[in-house]
């Protein structure tokens, strides 16, 4: 840092050439450094475009259409484990070019949105067949089983950290692949703590009609219907422990899963009940990835 420390000229001081020259020389600063720069002096204008954001992409997956005229379908798996279905025609997902090297002081943020709906077409009601059936009081009619409607389809983010060919997509860290049985359930599943980069949407809507003031009358009909089109948001954030190069991102869908607890922990397990007519549809999707400096 450079600064001027010479004292002022006081009354009575002789005015001499040497002193005057020294004072003029003070203004010829030769060792200015960044400590001399005032607060706020340095900002985005002085920096390269990668000072905060290193890389970014936005890519369309899915069908690209927004009219729902020709949605694509994902079939339900009833004997596990479920096979993840890539949500793009080639299965190659989004390319990150020659690869993004995510360093330890950087963060990868991935956001995906997807238009989906759960479909149920069979006349067979799933309550009593699928998980999540409870018996409720119908007063005049006694009791009846109903489905609590907690079934979900899962959309998971996968990445390729092997090569630019994007032929080796795997699950992201802290994300289970639902290919093994979970805990004591005996079902293919994962604990809720193992769902990084995983989004869920309801498989169907479950309701009861004519619940007329349940103290005097009760449920006369149960209904399970598709959920209608909706947009779901998937997020994934990754701060690596060591440099990780990511070459591609893609989305996969599989289901249906239901809540379960093993007496201690909560999880999602594959429901293998035999109710037919349950599937999922999807339409357009966008995936946005940001590679940025952590600080």
């Amino acid at each position, binding site marked *: 840092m450079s600064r001027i420390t010479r004292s002022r000229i006081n009354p009575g001081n002789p005015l001499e050439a040497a002193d005057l020259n020294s004072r003029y020389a003070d203004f010829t600063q030769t060792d200015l450094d960044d400590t001399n720069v005032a607060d706020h002096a340095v900002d985005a204008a002085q920096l390269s475009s990668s000072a905060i954001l290193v890389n970014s992409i936005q890519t369309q997956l899915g069908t690209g259409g927004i009219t729902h005229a020709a949605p694509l379908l994902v079939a339900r798996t009833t004997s596990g484990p479920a096979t993840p279905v890539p949500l793009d025609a080639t299965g190659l997902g989004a390319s990150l070019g020659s690869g993004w090297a995510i360093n330890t002081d950087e963060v990868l943020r991935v956001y995906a949105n997807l238009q989906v709906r759960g479909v149920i077409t069979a006349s067979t009601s799933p309550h009593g067949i699928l998980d*999540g059936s409870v018996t409720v009081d119908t007063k005049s009619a006694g009791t009846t089983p109903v489905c609590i409607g907690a079934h979900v389809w899962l959309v998971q983010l996968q990445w390729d950290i092997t090569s630019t060919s994007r032929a080796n997509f795997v699950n992201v860290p802290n994300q289970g692949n639902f290919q093994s049985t979970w805990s004591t359930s005996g079902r293919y599943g994962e604990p809720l703590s193992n769902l990084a980069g995983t989004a869920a949407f309801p498989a169907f809507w479950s309701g009861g009609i004519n619940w007329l003031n349940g103290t005097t009358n009760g449920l006369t009909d149960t209904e399970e219907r598709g959920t209608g089109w909706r947009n779901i948001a998937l997020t994934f954030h990754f701060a690596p422990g060591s440099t990780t190069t990511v070459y591609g991102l893609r989305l996969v869908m599989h289901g249906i899963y239901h809540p379960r607890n093993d007496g201690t922990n909560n999880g999602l397990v594959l429901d293998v009940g035999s109710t037919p007519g349950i599937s999922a549809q999807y339409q357009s999707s966008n995936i946005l990835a940001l590679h940025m400096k952590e600080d």
Partner: protein
Amino acid sequence: MKRWTQHQPRASQLLDSGQFNSEQLAHRASIQTLDRTQLPTSAITSAQLKSSALHKVWLFADREEQTKFVATNVPIDQWRCATFINYSGGYVTAFEKTLTGHKGGMTYIEWSGLAFCNGFAPMKNGKLTTYELMEKHLRLRIVASGLLIGEFQLLLAGTESFCVFASVNLPPGDHIISLQFDGTGQADDEPIKDVSTNNRIMQYHLANTVLLAVARFR
């Protein structure tokens, strides 16, 4: 831009100590606080930036699960979560994180995760042929150091992922960020337990939550 600001020497001018002192005093302060217009192009690069000079990212990717109001008397095919035996509605704080080392500035705050709300939806027959859905919601809101900055009503029926976010200009200092939820209380004609097992029916749950905050310092 710093310039010779006090006096412009002129030809044949007598030298005056006061003139020189004023200029020197002006520079003693200003030479230490150069502004950006005095810097040559590319004089400062990102390589010279100290950590957190311009921005900072806080990432709490612990995928935290709600632990408040967790009932244990639920069937095996439901989650241990908030039921109407232990939670009857109202805003409560589900998660809290602290943003340490905040230098002040605009801050983007984002919570994402998995939520469950009332899978079974009874409908009243209040209008005979027009069924009236028993309206229930799970609301989420983000509170930054006591300041409500975003409130969201999720269109939930069952299990669904969420991503809610808001931005706020925060002063320097550590900040506590809270994610609060509010589930609609039980209706007077809503089934809340399995009558055959006496187990409660799951109502609300939050899991797999991640907090991301990005601050752009002033």
